[in-house]
């Protein structure tokens, strides 16, 4: 069936089966930054943001269910050449190694910071507990989210040196 998905602000016309998962539709649309890791909604590497405010594991949704919603993926986070504070912070704090969990982790953190702009370490760890990482041991991911929280609360252009 033919559907139209609005991903990162642009409309994509896609041909899908009713059973096609949202993650497959996003990836088939050429946006391969959203990954697949477990097939059981455990790992979170497929996390995207729905309507700017809800983190969704895109393997838990059919593509057809996403019609009419605004989907944001990792490719929609930077503004031109300017990285989103979370992307900058993951780089600054060495919050990634192999990079496979990173897009999902950033999208989950993005929603976490919207709901709680100034989270404690414990709140970050709880908020990201639906996303697995095998490389970093999470410690630098937590630091990255803390840095991004600071950056987002500072006026634009101010440096967020750690």
């Amino acid at each position, binding site marked *: 069936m033919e559907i139209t998905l609005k991903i990162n602000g642009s409309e994509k016309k896609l041909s899908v*089966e009713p*059973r*096609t998962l949202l993650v*497959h539709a996003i*990836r088939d649309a050429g*946006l*391969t*930054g*959203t*990954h*697949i*890791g*477990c*097939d*059981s909604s*455990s*790992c979170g*590497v497929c996390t995207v943001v729905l309507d700017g405010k809800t983190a969704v594991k895109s393997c838990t949704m059919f593509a057809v269910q996403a019609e009419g919603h605004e989907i944001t*993926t*990792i*490719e929609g*986070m*930077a503004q031109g*050449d300017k*990285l989103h504070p979370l*992307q*900058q912070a*993951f*780089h*600054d704090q*060495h919050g*990634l*190694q*192999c*990079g*496979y*969990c*990173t*897009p999902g982790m*950033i999208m989950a953190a993005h929603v976490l910071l919207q709901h709680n702009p100034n989270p404690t370490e414990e709140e*970050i*760890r*709880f908020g*990201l*507990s*639906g*996303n*697995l*990482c*095998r*490389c*970093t*041991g*999470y*410690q*630098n*991911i*937590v630091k990255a989210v803390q840095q991004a929280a600071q950056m987002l609360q500072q006026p634009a252009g101010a440096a967020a040196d750690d």
Partner: protein
Amino acid sequence: MAVQTPNLEPKGIQGLGKAIKRKEDARFIVGKGNYLDDINLPGMLYMALVHSPYAHAKILNIDTSEALKIPGVKAVITAKDLAAAGLSWIPTLAGDKQMVLADGKVLYQHQEVAAVYAETRQAAADGAAAVQVEYEPLPVVVDPYKATAPDAPVLREDIKDQMSGAHGPRRHPNHIWTWEVGSKDETEKALAQSEVRIKQHMVYPRSHPAPLEPCGCIGDMNKATGRLTVYMTTQAPHAIRTVLSLVTKIPENNIRVISPDIGGGFGNKVPVYPGYVCAIVGSIVLGAPVKWVETRTENLTTTGFARDFHMDIEIGATKDGKVTAMKVYTLADHGAFDAAADPSKYPAGLFSICTGSYDFQKAYAQVEAVYTNKAPGGVAYRCSFRVTEASYLIERSMDVLAHELKMDPAELRLKNFIQPHQFPYPSALGWTYDSGDYEKTLKVALERIGYHELRKEQAEKRARGELMGIGISTFTEIVGAGPSKDFDILGIKMFDGAEIRVHPTGSAIVRAGTRHQGQGHETTWAQIVSEELGLDVDKIIVEEGDTDTAPYGLGTYASRSTPTAGGAMALAARRIREKAKKIAAHLLEVSENDVEWVDKKFQVKGVPGKSVTMNEVAFAAYTNPPPGLEPGLETTYYYDPPNLTFPHGAYVCVVDIDKGTGEVKVRRFVAIDDCGTIINPMIVEGQVHGGLTEGFAMAFMQEIAFDEQGNHLASNFTDYLLPTALETPKWETGHTVTPSPHHPIGAKGVGESPTVGSPAAFVNAVVDALAHLGVRHIDMPITREKVWRVLRSAGIDAF
């Protein structure tokens, strides 16, 4: 314009010891990594596999007719089709062979039985579900101790009459090999004369590396050119190319293996798997590219498991705590085929590092491997070939001995460490340790955690009935395989290559035969070259993973990249510098003997103002080379390391245990590592965080278990538990630096030390918390249930 890292700030010349941010991050943080499943080729087909529901069964019939009726399904193959191409079985890295698709019988649950090729991934999955297989179940062998019973069912009928294998005689159809090292008689004699002896049985359970990106492959046979391009999630692309050439008989020049970005490997992506072979065969037969990407269940149930060592140790000591001898017997459960990924001469890997950091005069170890109805493997999961098992064995046993002697475990270790003046140290089991300062590292760790105060606190808490424990692990690793005199895989020596091409404008491309999966080579290799050549680190591109362009090398696993390719990189750079010096002399109009390399520039000896930079030399290499000198500035270096490297560390863990629930809370964990020279402290710390987390996972959560019918009980992430941010402790890291005397930059490798060293620290802490209740050992994973049962059987009230 900064082209390579448009979003990231420039760095300049950044050599060893600098915590510069990673160059490779640029693509990953914006979702532009290029992992295997991100690659799509025109006309590409998809493959899905049919798996066995039984752990041991005869295959009576395979009916593919319904599958072939599904729209989009192009073909289905079974072992019979592979046999026509001579590919129904393939050799394993361990000198055994394994079925690609089940040939007459299945030997483990989820074993691959048929491959389905289709136009879409959905049609391939539908096709696989429609293949009808008729089985006749057979009795299974799950317990390795029962594998060689006289009446045990014969698993490998293909070799049941071969009473000799790749590693010596076999005493039973289910016995693979027996390997031993050290002097049995002398060790037994020393044990008999020891004042104190301890014996302990312990199991290092079967585990799985489970990188978040599953394994996958795209076979792309171009019939017009005769060239086969294979995109594969492999940690060792060159070794794969050679093996593919040997197995398929396609000339090696007609095979190109590309290992794209890898979403974690941890040893899982070293072997050749049936799915890879079927994707390649499919492409050759169907004349189109074929993609196969594992499901998570396929990953956990069929690809390389790790560990599964069942160990018995005996240690002798004097009454005042000086160790005298150790004897080890290990039963290794290798599953249905011996597909362990070890250097060929070492069927039990480097397990003989089991004397650890201690000065044992006598030692003997024997390892016996058996077949069972489980998936094949025995990969080095974030570990240098069975070092994790060895390190856990000795570090756990030192605590058992301390308990027996009523000695503090730190004091017992300090009493038995190999001393700095003893290096190079010949171990009782045949290794020559390069360098170390174990006492210093332990003392730094004890000081950092406040060990003596913690012991006081523990005594007070114990008096109040509270449970708190302190665990120590002072491990020694053995990594960097390895010197070609001892180390090869299927005859291919384990040296590594590096290539450097300096361009006229002072930038460079460097390539290595290794393949990073998160270790940061694109940054650290550039730092080595920046250090040696004085080039701007941003102007050095690092490329790995394409066998058409990279120099030969055996890949990235077993913490070998820095000890091997890192050495090659430094020596390639020095070879470039030798030539550059001649060009510098020409530019400075002095003799070469009057030129020296100072502050990353060539200058006339004693005349600081008169110098040229490497950028100027590079330009001259192409525009103004000295007469008679070959123009250009590039080289390839193959580095055959003279010895292995021996990183070490001291870890201290503090746990509190909830008496009611059995929950173990890791309160603090201090990890002091000594990996020799540090290239990038930020990356080293990141490696340690990740390795500790995998050690924590093994100690408390991860286990690949089976029921008595051989059903796999951990086939997805809801049953095979990985730690999330919530469970994972906060790590406190630090280091001492004892450079390797034989490595070109003194580096030893670090990626695996924390996974190797930490499990014993966790288990020692838990056992220490319960020691006064008579507990001497608990096998991993230490679940709440296990602790709860220990507490209840010890009569401890829940509240």
